[in-house]
């Protein structure tokens, strides 16, 4: 089964990303984790490595937060994503 998920970037200015929203399909079956999504994202957008994503751990850098569908903030990269989900990448909030 092929899953379609999206990754959205908001408030990210440190790196020029091809598109604010990247939609891609995963062939890893009907269950994928945030780690899988980040891994695929990195292969599509290698320049995110070291700027937004830690390429060795496949985690977002600690200066960024991940949120699924605007509903749930994630810790680490083990949360599951379903077909049609969006991983939203934003700078870590500490005021303003």
């Amino acid at each position, binding site marked *: 089964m092929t899953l379609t998920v999206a990754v*959205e970037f*908001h*408030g*990210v*200015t*440190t790196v020029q990303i091809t598109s*604010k929203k990247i939609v891609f399909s995963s062939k890893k079956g009907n269950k994928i984790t945030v780690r899988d999504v980040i891994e695929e994202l990195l292969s599509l957008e290698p320049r995110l490595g070291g700027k937004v994503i830690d390429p060795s751990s496949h985690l977002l*850098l*600690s*200066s960024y*937060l991940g*949120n699924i569908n*605007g*509903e*749930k*903030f*994630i*810790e680490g990269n083990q949360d599951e994503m379903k077909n049609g989900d969006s991983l*939203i990448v*934003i*700078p*870590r*909030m*500490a*005021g*303003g």
Partner: protein
Amino acid sequence: MNGYHGKALVIDLGLKTWRHVEIPESVLRGYIGGTGLAAWLLYQLCPEGADPLGSDNPLIFSTSPLVDTKLTTSSKFAVASKSPLTGYIGDSMSSSKIAVSMKRTGCDAVVVTGQSKDWTYLVVSDGGVDFCSAKHVVGLSNTDTENELKQLVGSGVSVACIGPAGERLVRYSTISNDGGRQAGRTGTGAVMGSKKLKAIVFAGDKKVEISDNDTLDGIRVDLIEKSLGLATAKYRDTGTIANASVFDRLGSLPSNNFKSGSFKDLGEITAETIYQETDVRSVHCANCTIGCEKLITEPGSNKQVRLEYQSLYALGPLLGSGNRSILLQSTNYCDEVGLDTVSAGATIAWYFECIEKGLLDDEFANSSNKILDILRSIVSRKGIGNLLAEGTKFASSIVEEGSSDFAMHVKGLEMPGYEPRTLKTMALALAVSTRGACHNRSSAYEYDFSSVTDRFKADSEKGGLVAKGEDYSAVMDSMIWCKFVRKVFSEFYKESSEILAAVTGWDIDAEELEACGERINNLKKMFNMREGWLREDDTLPNRVLSESLEDGNSLSEDELNLMIKSYYKARHWNEDGTIPFETLKRLNLEQAQNVVIS
């Protein structure tokens, strides 16, 4: 005493006299400095029931033990007074070289009382106070006032001044320093204006002793390194304007006077677009390694405008405007005349809705730059501007006809750019804050933007989070640290107490420092209770409690009350929000009203 001068300078503008008064070491240790010390001085020196714009209301500038230590982000000061917007405690903060100049005048706080007959500026140095005629600078903008006085007194000095808004007692006017930085909220600029005090020039040269310079040197280097890491990346890279598109996506960007939690015309004013289409320059406060300030220059313009998220929200989406040029012009105008952008924007948003509902005439129907023209009318107090200069609480009480339902303030202070119906921890913090709708004295949004709590759920865990956030913020604002450096600490209270120990020589630990935060917040509440606080003051605007957002998110009065109950419990207060004697005693506050400074 190390780290402090141990005294406050008290100036009487009416009598044109000044004196130094000692501040007991126990007070400095219990309230630290910044907003804590300012709150203590206000509690002592402001008579019960004082008119915020009368001669009795003291205007208090307070530094801290960290000022002049060159620790990163520590060049900050607080200013406090009874707020002309809320009638309760008002405090605000600003940064840069002025904090060092202020402290080098040989005191930890400068208190201005009384009222001058004629416009005055003060020159405060370690030798005393000069009272000078400000006739030639009245009516000048903040930049022109600062430049003029520096030329007159000397380029090495620092200036805190008010612009035309403060002179005309606009209730949300600011105090400006160091080239346009603002002590923005709660209307301290109007208090300064009510005293006919145009400016204070700080020109001291007296340094304090530090207890352990070697330890502090090591800490300084370590903090600089940490402050350049990932914890502060957002502020160095983009500044707070990054919030706009993030909040919009999360349904937490208030727009059109809080009718909506997102804004469809945001395109031109997101950080992403601003970085692509304009020239953005980062600026640092004195002794800061982060540089969160962003000066923006539009193509074809030579005007640099300082833009923060709160100004962007209040003079953009809140007014239904996504026009970048108008946003930058309005923000720059507010900085120059000394208007708090948040209160100004929220008051205009209320006016727009009054026009829409046929409650007030549109006096600007033919204007090509409506927002700027309304701001001008507020400062000149002409036409409807005279009413809008009073803020949403007062203006809606005059217009009536249900207009208070959409007057977006708490206790009189207008709402910042955080949508309470999708940020429930923040909703509670806005409702219970002693200074009104304030985002800075709790940092509660941080919990909502994390996996710690469910931001959509109004539950009883929110009370503990808000109390914890408030105490933490009170210590930050009293040490004083910039909020943007907070993530570099892994154990905030422990590390901060070690730094305070190195500066002062006190044997102070994390537990004692944490208790200072709780004490400061309770003292602020005591001030409000003395000035007539009622349980019903802890609430949110009717619109928030009665209307759902388009995505269905809402917050009922019952849900808010449940969270408020949990907050009072976490604070060890009575169910009606008053403070029991046991809590006062535990915090050594039971004698607060009897301490006299000599």
